[in-house]
């Protein structure tokens, strides 16, 4: 059974055909990068897996999206449960205007956990996983808005990890950050791989090369090529993929 799978998925925003028959299989504990020009469906595809597209009016989805073999769009699925198992990190860091501690604890609290020792331990664990603990351990009660952009994004990662999802969806997590923060986050992703299955949308091709095991190239809503990152970056099958990667895109 594959960890994440989509079978011939089509998505329409009203009459606009945004995703055209995407079939991808993703195995556990791998990092998959989705690359392609702007507006080609990568983020839309990513958002299928925690059903964030449901928040937009007028969206129609065909085909199947499966996690752990189960169709996540079936009626029996509880959306809140799904989102506990599938975490998301957004492009623009969006920590809540609360304390650092409360930001990470938020996910636990909304899921009904009240035991304070448990919450404290989990907060520390998540911050360590996000490589942020050492920098904030003495100022957990300070506002999250006082952190730098890179720290805020790592805080958002800690927040997503706090509820122990098994899948992590990352939508251009480093695009709003400076190079050093970006490098830190890339290293983080590389390390998180052993415990999570990660799908990451990125505009930065070198980033895809650095962090991912598999890469999918999207163009105008279609999946042009999906293969190991090594293959895509050394000898892609499709000319369009090669043109995009070498920067010779029209």
């Amino acid at each position: 059974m594959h960890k994440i799978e989509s079978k011939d998925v089509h998505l329409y925003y009203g009459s606009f055909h945004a995703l055209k028959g995407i079939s991808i299989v993703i195995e556990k504990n791998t990092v998959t990068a989705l690359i392609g020009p702007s507006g080609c469906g990568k983020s839309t595809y990513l958002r299928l897996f925690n059903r964030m597209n449901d928040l937009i009016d007028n969206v129609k989805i065909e085909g199947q999206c499966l996690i752990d073999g189960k169709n996540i769009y079936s009626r029996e699925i509880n959306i809140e449960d799904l989102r506990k198992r599938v975490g998301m990190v957004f492009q623009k860091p969006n920590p809540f205007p609360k304390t650092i501690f409360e930001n990470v604890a938020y996910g636990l609290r909304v899921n009904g956990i009240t035991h304070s020792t448990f919450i404290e331990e989990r907060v520390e664990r998540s911050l360590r996983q996000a490589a942020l603990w050492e920098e904030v351990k003495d100022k957990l009660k300070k506002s999250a808005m006082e952190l730098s952009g890179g720290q805020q994004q790592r805080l958002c990662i800690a927040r997503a990890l706090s509820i122990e999802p098994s899948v992590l969806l990352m939508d251009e997590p480093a695009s709003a950050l400076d190079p050093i923060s970006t490098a830190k986050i890339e290293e983080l992703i590389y390390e998180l791989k052993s415990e999570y299955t990660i799908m990451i949308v990125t505009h930065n091709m070198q980033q895809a090369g650095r962090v991912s095991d598999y890469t999918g190239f999207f163009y105008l809503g279609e999946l042009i090529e999906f293969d190991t990152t090594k293959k895509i970056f050394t000898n892609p099958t499709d000319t369009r993929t090669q043109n995009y990667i070498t920067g010779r895109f029209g």
Partner: protein
Amino acid sequence: MTHLDIELKSLKTDMLEMFSLVKNQLEKTKDALTSLDKDLAREVMVNEKRVNGFELKLDRDCENIIALLNPVAVDLRFVLAALKINSNLERVGDIADGIAKFVLNIKLDVEPQLLQTTRLVEMFEIAIGILKDVMEAFDKEDTALARSVFKKDEVLDEINVDANTAVAEFIRANNDRINQSLYTLSTIRKLERVGDQCKNIAEEIIFYVEAKVLKHKSLSQKEELPGETKN
């Protein structure tokens, strides 16, 4: 350690293994030749496949590192040097294989007299010594050790030149042993080339550690330590 560091470390370990492989080939060939052990010679020839396979793997690893991890500066120089050293080592492996083929084809022992006058065994030992030197220089990033190789190689060149005379004389005295003599001469040429390959490896090591290009320079220029300028 970043992803890149892990890959570079892995590459270095694999390179050292390639060095080791090739060194063993050379040592086995020397033993095969001096004791005319045909079984040992066959071992060397079988192992040659492993050497070739390993070369291909190392090439692919270097390609992947460059394509995926964008190394720059010393990291990039390291990967480029590794690519070239890999190719040099493969050729040394070929040479060992070639000499082993001779051992299989010789019908009689090599004349001890010939062995002595041509200093063949000494040559073997110097060549293997030089290979060990560059292996250590690569491992320890020791550019002084790498530079010492240039001088040592001169001895090999010397033996190579002298060998012509020695063998010619032997043929004049023993013209029923021409095949043997030719094989011996061939082996000497091959060993001289081992020295050349090791010199190239030394140049690559100095390139990646010091960013100094020593290709096509004179001996004295090569021996210059960083910071000096003789002429």
